[in-house]
Each structure stands twice: as C-alpha cells, then as structure tokens.
C-alpha cells in the first residue's frame, strides 16, 4: 500500500503524544492558576506526580478480583493505541492498514468502560457512584462526537483522519463551509465533557458532589493509579488532537525536515489554543448540577445534528 505516513512516523507520533500529555495538563493547570491570580505548580508537575506514583507500592481492596490489577494497564494501552490514530506532524493516508476516527472513538470508550468496570470491581461506594455517573454521561457524549466526525467526514468521503486532513487541505476559517462552524461549536461544547473538566466534571477534586472521573480512580493506588493518570492525560491530548485534526487541518506539507518541523509546530500551536480555551472555560464557569448536564450536552447534540443537516441538504 502506498501512503504518506509510515509505520515509523505513526509510532513516533504516538510516543510524542504520550510524552506530551502530562505537559498539556500541566500547562492547563498553570493557565488556570494564573487566571485565578494564583502562582500555581510548575508545568512539569504532572511528570513528578507520575514518577512518584510509579515508585510506590500497591494497596488493593480485598473484594477486588484478580482482573483488577491489569485494568490500569489495559486502559493505558487502549488510550495510547487511540493516540496512534491522530495525525500529528503530517497529513495523508497511512502506508499500512490503520484504524480510522471511529476506531479512535471505540478505543476511547473501551478505556472508559474498563475504568468504570474497575471502579465497580473494587467495591467502593464512591467508585460505584462515579462509574454510574460516568456511564450516564458517556452515552450522551459519544454519539454526538461521532456525529461531529461524520459531519466533517462527509465532505471528504473518508473517516481516516490522515486522509481526511489531506483532503481538507490547509483550509482556514475564511474558506470554511457553513457546516464547519456548527461542527466546531458542537466540538467546543463537547471538549470539556470529553476531557473531564468543568462544567461537566472537575478534575481537581474527588469530592463526592463533583466526582465523575476522579471518583472512579479512588480505589487505585501506586503504579496502577499512575497508569490511570497517564491514560487520562493521554486521553485529553488525543481528544484535543482529534478536534485539531477535524477542524484545523495542517494540509499536505513537504516530506523533508522543514515540513516535519512545520507540522509539529502547527500541532503544538493548535493544541495550545484549545488548551487556552479549556482553561478559560474552567475558570469562568461553575460546575453544572448533574441533572443539568444533559441539557448542556443537548446544545452540542443539536449543533452536530444541524451541521450534518447542512452538509447533506
């Protein structure tokens, strides 16, 4: 098969995403702190946290099954595999059979399912509550995310992200189709939900009232918790990367070192812009009551549906 993205490149991009994930979390936390007039921890704090957790021992609930210890690794693997599907430095179809955007969403929901299962497995009350809440919200987020992907994929005729990006070329806001605006609006509504941030979830606490994702991690400890946290950092950068790939394509750049650097630089800028958006949203809104979340996500659903309608009709 001929294609622009070789196996080596895809692997490199995947590892890059995993390595940069914690940095992104650190940057968002730093931005939030500055917006709230606090000094905040350094941007590499998440790395320290991960290293600390990986060096600790594991404590496990007596009720947990033997499957429990392998779950953090599985979650991490599923999320990292999803990262392989995001084109980072170069657009274009892959040179070997690689999954598409639907595969990516499937892997992310697999990770989410495993996380919820582990929370239920441990038998803690808080974990069960977090899991049930997460599973209430997930079916509202995932179909809408798929509809956003479809609304963009319809124009290119493919759901493979690299080929999709190459097809869209370097279209910037001025050359956008009307449906792109509604699709981006839906994506911006969904991003806080998918990355587990205010107004849907609060990543900073695992208080009973706010917990969704953090609640599910309560029973994990040591390296397992480290894997789960690394997975959630990776999930965040993968989600932002998906948004960037769908709406801010880099276009076909030349295959030399210049194109490589240009693509990487463009990716960093796009991710940073989305990170600033997340930090701003988190600093300016309060967390929604759980029962108001469906209405909030309903806005995203309606926007995505209209984007599809605009694309088809």
């Amino acid at each position, binding site marked *: 098969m001929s294609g622009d993205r070789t196996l080596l490149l895809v692997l490199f991009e995947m590892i890059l995403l995993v390595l940069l994930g914690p940095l992104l979390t650190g940057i968002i936390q730093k931005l939030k702190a500055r917006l709230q007039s606090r000094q905040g921890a350094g941007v590499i704090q998440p790395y320290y946290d991960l290293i600390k957790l990986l060096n600790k021992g594991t404590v496990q609930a007596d009720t947990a099954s033997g499957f429990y210890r392998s779950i953090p690794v599985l979650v991490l693997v599923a999320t990292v595999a999803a990262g392989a599907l995001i084109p980072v430095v170069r657009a274009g179809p892959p040179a070997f059979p690689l999954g598409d955007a639907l595969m990516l969403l499937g892997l992310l929901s697999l990770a989410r399912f495993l996380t919820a299962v582990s929370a239920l497995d441990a038998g803690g009350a808080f974990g069960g509550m977090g899991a049930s809440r997460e599973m209430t919200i997930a079916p509202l987020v995932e179909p809408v995310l798929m509809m956003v992907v479809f609304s963009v994929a319809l124009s290119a005729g493919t759901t493979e992200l690299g080929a999709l990006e190459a097809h869209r070329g370097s279209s910037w806001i001025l050359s956008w189709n*009307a*449906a792109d*605006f*509604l699709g981006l609006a839906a994506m911006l509504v969904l991003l806080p939900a998918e990355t587990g941030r205010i107004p849907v979830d609060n990543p900073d606490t695992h208080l009973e009232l706010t917990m969704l994702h953090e609640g599910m991690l309560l029973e994990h400890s040591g390296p397992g918790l480290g894997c789960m946290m690394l997975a959630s950092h990776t999930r965040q950068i993968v989600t932002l990367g998906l948004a960037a790939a769908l709406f801010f394509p880099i276009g076909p750049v030349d295959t030399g070192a210049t194109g490589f650097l240009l693509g990487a630089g463009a990716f960093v800028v796009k991710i940073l812009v989305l990170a600033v958006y997340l930090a701003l949203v988190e600093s300016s809104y309060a967390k929604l009551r759980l029962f108001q979340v469906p*209405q909030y996500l309903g*806005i995203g659903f*309606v*926007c995505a549906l209209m*984007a599809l309608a605009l694309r088809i*009709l």
Partner: protein
Amino acid sequence: MNIATVHSIIDDLGALLLFTMILIVAASQISRAIYAVATQSLFIALAGAVLATATGNVDLWVIAGITLIVKAMVLPWLLHWVVRRMDVKREVEPVIPDMATLALAVVIVVMSFHLSASLGSVRQSITGNALPVGIALTLNGVLVMATRKTALSQMVGLFAAENGIFFTAMAVTEGMPLIIEIGVILDVILAALVMTIMVLRVRSTVDADIADLDRLRG
C-alpha cells in the same frame, strides 16, 4: 467580491445565526438569551454589510447600521434594563421540557432545509442558504414565544423571529426599499416599548405573571 465568496460568507453567517438561535432556545437564564439575541442581530448587521459591498446598494449600508445600533445595542439594553428593574434572574419558564424544545428546534431547522430544497429554481436565485436559515430562525422564534411562560422570554422570541424575517428579506431581495426596512425597524421598536411598559405595568399593578392571566375568565 465575486458571487461565490458572497455566497459562502452568507452561508457561514447563516450557520452562526443558527448557532445563536440554539443558544436562545437552550438558554436557562434570561440574560444569556438576551446576549444571544444581541449577537444574532450583530451577525445580521454583518450580513447586511456583506450584501451591501457585494451589490453596491447604499440602502443596505444604512440598514446594516440601523440594525447594529437598534437591534444589537438599544433593544438588548432595554431588555436588560427591564430584567434589572424587575429583579429577575431565571425568568425562563418553559411550558414543555427544555430538551423537547431543543428537539423541536432541530426538527424545524431540518424541515426548513428540506422544504426549501424542494423549491428548486427559486432556491437557486437566492443568496446561499439564506432562505432556509431565515425560515428556520423565524419559526424557531415563534417556537420560543410559544414555549415560554414569561413575557420577557416571549419578547426575546419575537426579536429572534423578526431577525429571521429581516435576514430572509435582505438576502432574497438584495436590499428592500429603505422606507420599508425603516418601517419594520420602527415597528419592532414600538412593539418592544409597548411590551416593556405592559410587562412592568402588569407586574406593578397586579403583581402577577402573564401566565396567571390564563385563569382570568369573563
């Protein structure tokens, strides 16, 4: 500007108009709905300016300017003033659940696109997606008026519906006679003033909501 650029810009503005309409339908606080309707008017003024540069019609510049000042600034300010005066925060009381209203809004948008697609040659002569977007805005404005109990939200719905009619008229005719447009704007201002006075008066004399009038029987 060539025709294709104008078409695509009007299309994009139409998408943004639809987005603001969704925000109006989904708003849980009256002040957010007012901000959304002000933004919508701003986009309509932008559309007017784009059409004015495309057609060279000076009247459209005037209309865009008036829309910007009256509908994007003065009327929202008036509504905010009423909200402050009445000291209400969550003045949105839907008759049917919010999600049902949102679903109806989607149905309206899809139907208006579907129906205007069947118009064929008429559709072709109109700038971009202006016709279905205009119809959708108008009907959604009526939907907001029909599904809210309180007078202020109904006013927001009226303004949104009026925005839809305005947008359609502007795009279909590429500039109606100035006198008609100004007449329409004056009508809106008058309606807003009368409704404002009504809302405040009803509130101050009987201390009741408009919905309570349902129980009034002769």
